[in-house]
């Protein structure tokens, strides 16, 4: 006669041990992912670069017609900027003497929220004086990189 009473609880302890290991591994994984997982925050730099390119274009090219007609497509062509890529994660607004001339959309006020996280955009704002006209250029960036296989 075999007495098996109590022998099964020793094997139940193995499951508890495995569960504990899974918890520890999960904690280590979560910690390193939170610390390393954010990537390189480039939004502010991206907004500054776009702002610089737009100001450079305004200073070097004649954009009177584009401002007069508020032509966004014409602006992209003259300034040699890729409209599709900018539309994916950027926006900009150009005002001349307070009057909005070109606006691609976007909420620039989100850039001023205190305590904002990486889910909010970053902005760049600069003004230039061109022949007595005060031109304000505002750019916004929310672009992120893509991780792909291959």
């Amino acid at each position, binding site marked *: 006669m075999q007495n098996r009473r109590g022998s099964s609880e020793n094997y139940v302890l193995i499951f508890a041990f495995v569960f504990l290991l899974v918890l520890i591994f999960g904690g280590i994984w979560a910690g390193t992912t939170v610390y390393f997982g954010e990537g390189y925050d480039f939004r502010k730099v991206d907004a500054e670069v776009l702002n610089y*390119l737009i100001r450079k274009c305004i200073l070097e090219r004649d954009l009177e017609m584009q401002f007069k007609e508020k032509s966004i497509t014409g602006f992209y062509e003259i300034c040699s900027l890729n409209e599709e890529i900018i539309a994916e994660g950027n926006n900009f607004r150009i005002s001349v003497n307070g009057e909005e001339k070109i606006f691609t959309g976007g909420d620039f006020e989100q850039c001023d929220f205190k305590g904002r996280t990486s889910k909010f955009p970053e902005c760049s704002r600069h003004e230039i004086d061109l022949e007595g006209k005060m031109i304000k250029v505002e750019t916004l960036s929310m672009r992120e990189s893509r991780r792909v296989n291959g």
Partner: protein
Amino acid sequence: MINKRGSGSDILWQNVAYIVFTVIFFAGILLFLNQQSNGAFVWEDFYAKEISRVINLAEAGDELQIDVQKATGIALRNDVSDIRRVFEFDNAKNEICVKLSARKTCYNYYNNVDVVDAEVILASGDKGDVNILSFKVVEKRRDENAK
């Protein structure tokens, strides 16, 4: 009456099970931390974005050379054997992809130019020499299949 027959083998198998699970656990932890410690994803992200910044600020006719010693070192440690696949430019999409691990990270640039003659020039071995990414920026070609 307590029957202790077989209790010795029970204890042995339990201990074997504990040891096996512990070894698997630590092996997994070491593998995971080793992958995180060289930070392949962060460096992919960094290089993709910084190279896109360089391209955005460049003008047609510029020839550029960038120190990529760190990136190529990480790529080799992660078994990316073909150095030509570490930095890939796609002119149709205006995109730079950096591959330092099994996956790659891509980022677009909005300057409407093409990147040509891209190559990684390996260090010659002299003291202070580093691996260099070299490429040229030219006017955008109208053929969208150009790479």
